């Protein structure tokens, strides 16, 4: 179920890489921004205590905005140098961690679920919280909308086109700045959605960005950098591997299996399952 949320994260990460060639290591930090924005807006102990749905929408908007600011305020000045960008974004993530600690403290918080309660699925012998279902449905709606946008509209298609060939996009009169800005906005919104759900289903801490980022990393590389379809497939594959490694190897090996699969994929298929050699320059 949560794999759909991971797919959201991975898609945002992969789109930014596809369009601008930027490995945005601050992507995880955006997830954290989403979760903390929601916390600040909806926490019953906080000042605003907005209804969860309103808080959700605002948190997503704030994260999208933060993502845009990150691009326009920082990345657009340095994106010509991959190494500098790579480093700068990871430094932004570390910086945000400290800022969040100063503002919210280092202790974990739990978010108000958008809906509460749960159902037991006797067939599989597990319980599912309604909020998990909401996360699943909302994530898939978001992915579906994105799919429609990038395949059926000129504006969206320009994003895909730019990720295939920047020069080609320029030759067809695509405004790269607009495309990149839009991509960062979308990736930010997706990170915001993911942030609220991960913060609800897991916990909201200043360190929460690392694991989703690592997962996004793994998913994107396995799925193929730049491929949205690859991200969705790999997200489910990773979700399965995570569960499998807990069951087969024991919980202390959580994540190890996916990392090993990742290393293998990188070595055998450096471009991932749906990876295609990018046509950058």
């Amino acid at each position, binding site marked *: 179920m949560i794999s759909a949320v991971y797919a959201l994260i991975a898609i945002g990460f992969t789109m930014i890489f596809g369009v601008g060639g930027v490995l945005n290591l601050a992507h995880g930090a955006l997830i954290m921004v989403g979760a903390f924005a929601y916390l600040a807006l909806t926490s019953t102990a906080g000042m605003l205590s907005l209804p969860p749905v309103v808080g959700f929408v605002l948190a997503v908007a704030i994260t999208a905005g933060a993502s845009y600011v990150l691009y326009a305020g920082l990345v657009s000045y340095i994106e010509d140098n991959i190494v500098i960008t790579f480093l700068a974004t990871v430094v932004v993530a570390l910086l945000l961690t400290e800022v969040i600690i100063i503002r919210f403290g280092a202790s974990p918080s739990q978010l108000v679920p958008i809906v509460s309660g749960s159902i037991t699925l006797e067939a599989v012998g597990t319980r599912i919280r309604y909020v998990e279902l909401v996360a699943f449905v909302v994530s898939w709606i978001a992915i579906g909308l994105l799919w429609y946008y990038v395949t059926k509209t*000129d504006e969206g*298609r320009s994003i*895909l*086109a730019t990720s295939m060939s920047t*020069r*080609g996009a320029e*030759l067809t*009169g695509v405004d790269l700045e607009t495309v990149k800005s839009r991509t960062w906005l979308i990736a930010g919104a997706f990170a915001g959605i993911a942030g609220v759900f991960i913060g609800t289903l897991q916990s909201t801490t200043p360190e929460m960005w690392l694991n989703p980022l690592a997962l996004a990393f793994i998913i994107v590389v396995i799925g193929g950098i730049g491929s949205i379809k690859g991200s969705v497939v790999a997200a489910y594959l990773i979700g399965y591997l995570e569960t499998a490694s807990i069951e087969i190897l024991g919980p202390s090996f959580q994540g190890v299996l996916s990392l090993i699969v990742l290393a293998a994929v990188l070595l055998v298929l450096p471009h991932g399952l749906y990876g*295609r050699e990018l*046509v950058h320059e």
Partner: protein
Amino acid sequence: MAHLELQDVHVRYGKSHALKGISLSVEEGEIYGVIGPNGAGKTTMLNAIAGFVDYEGQITYDGTDLAAVSSQQIVRDGLVYCTEDRDLFPFFSVHENLLMGAQFRNDRSAVEDDLEMVYDLFPRLDERREQEAETMSGGEQQMLAIGRALMSDPDMLMLDEPTIGLAPVIIQDISAAIERLQDEGLTILLAEQNSTFALRHAERLSLIETGELELEGTSEEFHDNEYVREAYVGVH
């Protein structure tokens, strides 16, 4: 007034001086050929016009100084460039590639008309509407590149080495297309190593060698020029 005019255009890549003061002008409706050996600076010149490299000197298009115009605006203003690498969208279908060419146009019905025009011009593309660009042959890709450029509703087309690496049969198809486009009044700036091809289509030509304009004249003058004949035409 000339459609496109270059005045003393220089391009430097670091220490190398790739274009050393080129001046030429292209008139509305003509096919203008630029010939010269590999590495002479033809592509650099087209890149400068398209706004992909920095240059010194002046380039005007329809009287507008292009220095201040972004490369995507140049395309939207009707000066469209088909690069030597073609720069197609490899995982888009033929149809999607063509749609991308028209992505900035709002007039749906005109776009539909242009689609039909391109499919009519290159029936091979019509047969392969859903095929991914990456999986097509070189000739088909070249057709697609020209087709995509046409979808941007150009007044002027810049073609860089449209025949490079293509079989003679395909070259004929492209020749036919170029002739038809000229009939419809499109201005074309054609850069070619294949001088025979360039001489067949262009009304006026220049010869560029090592970044300098060596010769300018009509196709007749080029035909009669001994140096050109020996160095370039005889080969093909």
